[in-house]
């Protein structure tokens, strides 16, 4: 008991070691994983963070806008475990865990960090400059949705437009910078030879870009009016219409 | 109104009642109850009528059986002598009898052979009243015998249980051994003085103590020790209290051991006047202290309520014996006052135990619990009894224990003998242990949680509660008004005990005491300047009102006081906190309290288990050994 008595008495006359928190601001250590800061512009909506977040604290809300989508990322701090995986896996560096630890809230709303990532749909689709490409299959591995298939032996590179979310992950990883967003040539509708001139495509086209003369068996297309809505292609019973690259 | 006949009438009345109950009572309950009530009330009335002349006017009533007046200074017949001391005990006796009778009407209704019960009961009360009033030594012995018989028979009254018979047998054997010693003592006295009258004996014996009288003193000292259940002889008493029906065990603890104490006082103060010798005082105080300590420590280890109360009776008698052994004015007053208080609060506690037995069917502490919600009135009475026995201020135990502490320490300081200071310290520690064991009982029986089978226990009928309330009131009253209680009852009684001339002159005509050279000791007036509780109670009341006013005034601003009356949502907000569990029945029973204390005293308790072995021979051996020790002690000291 005596040693503790000595310690107690010496403490009595020495300065208390309490950090007077609210009056003396206390900064967290530099690598402290605190509140998440999300930078919408850097984000490319690749979805890696969502995939890698174990408690599923991140969710995305899509809202279509005219030139693409507004994806709001919601980081729910009440269910986040602050492991920092999303920060590590976000190549763009859009997510950073700041050293702000003051995450105290009465209503849960203000514990949710929101950020909007405006995703402009690139006009064209992914295509590969075959002479630069060395078929190293890196882009295929990188693609989150598995849209690219590369056959090293046959030296072929194909992309499945449906799956591609235009995230640009392949562009970034291609060592040779072979992959690029092809400049979107204005899409032109082309009519195949077994057209029966049933004028269905003309009726479907909202912009009357197609004129069909049943009698003279002629099919004409006005590219300037066409909005590439694809309704004519879908309506043609003979499936002779298809998009093609204009000039 | 020639009231000198009244004591004889009262005693004979009770015996007559006993026989009448035997004849008429066995058939109908009403007749029996009426006879008992009438005879006990008229005995009470007769004796209480005497209080005024004897106590206040200081007159000593002497009455010669068959009008055999003493012939030229020699007492021939049996004389009844009521001086203040015997009047004091007579009040005690009469009070206990009346209350026990009223209590037993409803309490004993479930037993059979009630005719015999009331016969024995009236015999017991008649014997003790006779014992207190008599002035003749042999008559004293005969009354003690009748008392022992009635007590033994009553202990064995509920003979279905084998243990009751066993207790009765042990009580009879040890009692008879004790009575044998007393009878031998009396014969030796008669051999020496050729008289049986106490007053004459004391006038002849004062001063000239021959070996025969010393042997007689030692033997009678053992005899009355056996009757007042001090330490070496206390084991059968604990069994007897436990097995007797509660209304009888209340009489035991209120009257029977007081009769033993009365005999002891008569013997040592009046007949032999041996108290001036320092050694006898130390012997008595030592016996008292040991009885106190053993009584309480054994009580702490008990599992049965009545056995616990029995051991407490033994320990409180230890207090009385210690106080009387001091032979100072304050000491004797304290002792007598504690005897009165003991009768009150111990009677109350036994009645409550009886009520619990009547309502819940068992007095085993491990199977009882949570009765305060089922029997609120009994619980309050028990609390009053418990607080007064452990000596908390407003109640009567405090006043008498206070006197005893002051007396013992005053004796220590004046005589410079550290032993009495040791007695004060033990007295205080024993009083705390008494409080401990009563906390154990209240927690085990009244508070805590109610076991399933006791859910539908109901309050006891009114006629059982009436004596309880009377006793509770008396407890509080004697605690508060002990100033004038001292003036009217205690002072005359202790004076009568201390100086004997009045006693002798009344019996054998004035002047005999002077001739025998017994000077009248001027008893020092007890210095009563210490704090009288009435003023103290006013303070208590003022602050109580103030605090309640603050609490009540805060009512509006405070949260409401809520208790769910409905019992079905017990599991919600009002359930006991079981760290979240569903509140199941887990009652902290009596036996698992005071773990720390028992662990430290485990060696002591093992020895105690050995001593209370329950074997008749051991008890008889203890009695005889104690007799031998006392004889040797007396010879060494007095000759």
């Amino acid at each position, binding site marked *: 008991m005596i040693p503790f008595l000595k310690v107690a008495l010496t403490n009595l006359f020495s300065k208390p070691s309490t950090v007077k928190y609210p009056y003396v601001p206390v900064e967290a250590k530099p690598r402290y994983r605190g509140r998440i800061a999300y930078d919408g512009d850097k984000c490319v909506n690749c979805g890696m963070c969502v995939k890698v977040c174990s408690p599923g604290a991140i969710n995305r809300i899509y809202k279509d806008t005219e030139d693409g989508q507004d994806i709001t990322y919601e980081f729910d701090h009440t269910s986040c475990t602050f492991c920092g995986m999303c920060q590590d896996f976000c190549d763009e560096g859009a997510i950073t865990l700041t050293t702000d630890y003051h995450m105290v809230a009465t209503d849960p709303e203000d514990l949710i960090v929101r950020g909007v990532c405006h995703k402009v749909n690139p006009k064209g689709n992914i295509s590969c400059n075959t002479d630069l490409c060395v078929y190293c299959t890196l882009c295929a591995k990188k693609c989150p949705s598995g849209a690219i298939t590369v056959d090293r032996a046959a030296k072929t590179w194909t992309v499945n437009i449906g799956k591609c979310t235009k995230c640009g992950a392949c562009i970034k990883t291609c060592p040779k910078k072979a992959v690029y967003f092809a400049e979107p040539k204005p899409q032109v509708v082309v009519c195949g030879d077994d057209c029966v001139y049933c004028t269905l495509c003309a009726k479907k086209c909202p912009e009357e870009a197609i004129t069909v003369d049943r009698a003279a068996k002629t099919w004409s297309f006005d590219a300037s009016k066409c909005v590439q809505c694809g309704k004519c292609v879908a309506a043609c019973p003979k499936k002779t219409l298809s998009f093609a690259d204009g000039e | 109104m020639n009231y000198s006949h009244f004591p004889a009438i009262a005693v004979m009345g009770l015996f007559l009642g006993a026989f009448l109950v035997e004849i008429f009572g066995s058939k109908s309950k009403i007749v029996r109850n009426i006879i008992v009530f009438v005879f006990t009330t008229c005995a009470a009335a007769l004796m209480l009528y005497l209080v005024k002349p004897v106590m206040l006017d200081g007159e000593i009533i002497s009455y010669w059986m068959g009008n055999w007046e003493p012939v030229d200074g020699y007492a021939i017949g049996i004389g009844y002598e009521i001086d203040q001391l015997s009047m004091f005990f007579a009040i005690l006796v009469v009070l206990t009898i009346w209350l026990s009778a009223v209590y037993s009407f409803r309490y004993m209704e479930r037993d059979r052979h009630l005719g015999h019960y009331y016969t024995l009961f009236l015999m017991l009360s008649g014997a003790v009243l006779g014992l207190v009033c008599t002035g003749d030594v*042999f008559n004293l012995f*005969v009354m003690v*015998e009748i008392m022992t*018989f009635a007590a*033994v*028979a009553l202990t*064995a009254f509920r*003979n279905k249980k*084998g*243990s009751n*018979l*066993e*207790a*009765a*047998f042990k009580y*009879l*054997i040890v009692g*008879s*051994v004790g*009575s*044998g010693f007393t*009878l*031998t003592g*009396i*014969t030796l006295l*008669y*051999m020496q003085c*050729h008289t*049986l009258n106490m007053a004459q004996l004391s006038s002849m014996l004062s001063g000239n103590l021959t070996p025969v009288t010393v042997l007689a003193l030692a033997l009678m000292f053992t005899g009355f020790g056996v009757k007042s259940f001090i330490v070496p002889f206390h084991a059968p008493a*604990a*069994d007897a209290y*436990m*097995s007797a029906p509660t209304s009888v065990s209340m009489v035991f603890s209120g009257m029977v051991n007081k009769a033993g104490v009365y005999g002891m006082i008569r013997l040592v103060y009046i007949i032999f006047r041996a108290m001036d010798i320092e050694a006898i005082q130390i012997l008595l105080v030592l016996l008292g202290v040991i009885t106190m300590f053993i009584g309480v420590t054994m009580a702490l*280890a008990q599992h049965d309520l009545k056995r616990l109360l029995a051991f407490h009776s033994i320990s409180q008698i230890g207090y009385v014996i210690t106080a009387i052994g001091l032979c100072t004015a304050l000491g004797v007053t304290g002792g007598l006052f504690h005897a009165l208080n003991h009768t009150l609060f111990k009677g109350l506690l036994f009645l409550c135990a009886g009520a619990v037995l009547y309502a819940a069917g068992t007095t085993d502490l491990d199977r009882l619990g949570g009765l305060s919600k089922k029997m609120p009135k009994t619980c309050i009475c028990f609390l009053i009894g418990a607080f007064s026995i452990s000596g908390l201020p407003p109640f009567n135990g405090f006043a008498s224990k206070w006197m005893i502490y002051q007396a013992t320490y005053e004796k220590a300081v004046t005589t410079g003998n550290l032993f009495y200071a040791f007695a004060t310290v033990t007295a205080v520690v024993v009083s705390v242990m008494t409080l401990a064991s009563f906390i154990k009982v209240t927690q085990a029986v009244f508070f805590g949680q109610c076991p399933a089978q006791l859910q539908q226990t109901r309050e006891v009928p009114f006629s059982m509660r009436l004596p309880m309330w009377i006793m509770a009131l008396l407890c509080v009253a004697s605690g508060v008004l002990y100033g004038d209680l001292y003036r009217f009852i205690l002072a005359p009684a202790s004076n009568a005990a201390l100086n004997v001339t009045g006693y002798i002159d009344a019996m054998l005509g004035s002047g005999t005491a002077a001739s025998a050279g017994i000077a009248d000791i001027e008893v020092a007036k007890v210095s009563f300047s210490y704090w009288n509780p009435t003023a103290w109670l006013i303070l208590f009341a003022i602050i109580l009102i103030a605090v309640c006013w603050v609490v009540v005034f805060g009512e509006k601003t405070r949260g409401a006081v809520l208790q769910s009356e409905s019992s079905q949502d017990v599991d919600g907000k009002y359930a006991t906190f079981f760290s979240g569990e569903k509140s199941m029945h887990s009652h902290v029973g009596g036996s698992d309290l005071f773990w720390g204390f028992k662990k430290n005293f485990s060696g002591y308790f093992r020895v*105690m*288990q050995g001593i*209370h*072995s*329950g*074997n*008749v*021979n051991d008890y*008889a*051996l203890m009695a*005889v050994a104690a007799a031998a020790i006392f004889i040797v002690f007396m010879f060494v000291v007095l000759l």
Partner: protein
Amino acid sequence: MILNYITSVILIVLGLYTVCTKRNLIKIVLGLGITDYGINLLIVSIGYNNGGTAPIYSSDLFNLNASAAAFVDPVPQALTLTSIVIGACVDAMALALVIMLNRRYKTTDANEIRRLKG
């Protein structure tokens, strides 16, 4: 006279010995009886006075003082009567209790009858 006192002391001590050591209940009760008779003997022998006659006044009632000295002291005899009665009652009750105990405990050995202890 001394012989009476010695025998009564022996009887008392013998009685106490049996009460304290014998395990059979009936023997204990007998021991009690023996102590009682020892005491009775003591009480009776106290009243003896050499050459005294029975304390009854015969025809010559008047010369009182002549025969007074020769009387044996009547008081101890009265005491003995009471003591004998008490002794008898004690024995009767004790034996009754022994019978009941035997019926309950099926034994008369003091060591077995030890339910109330501690």
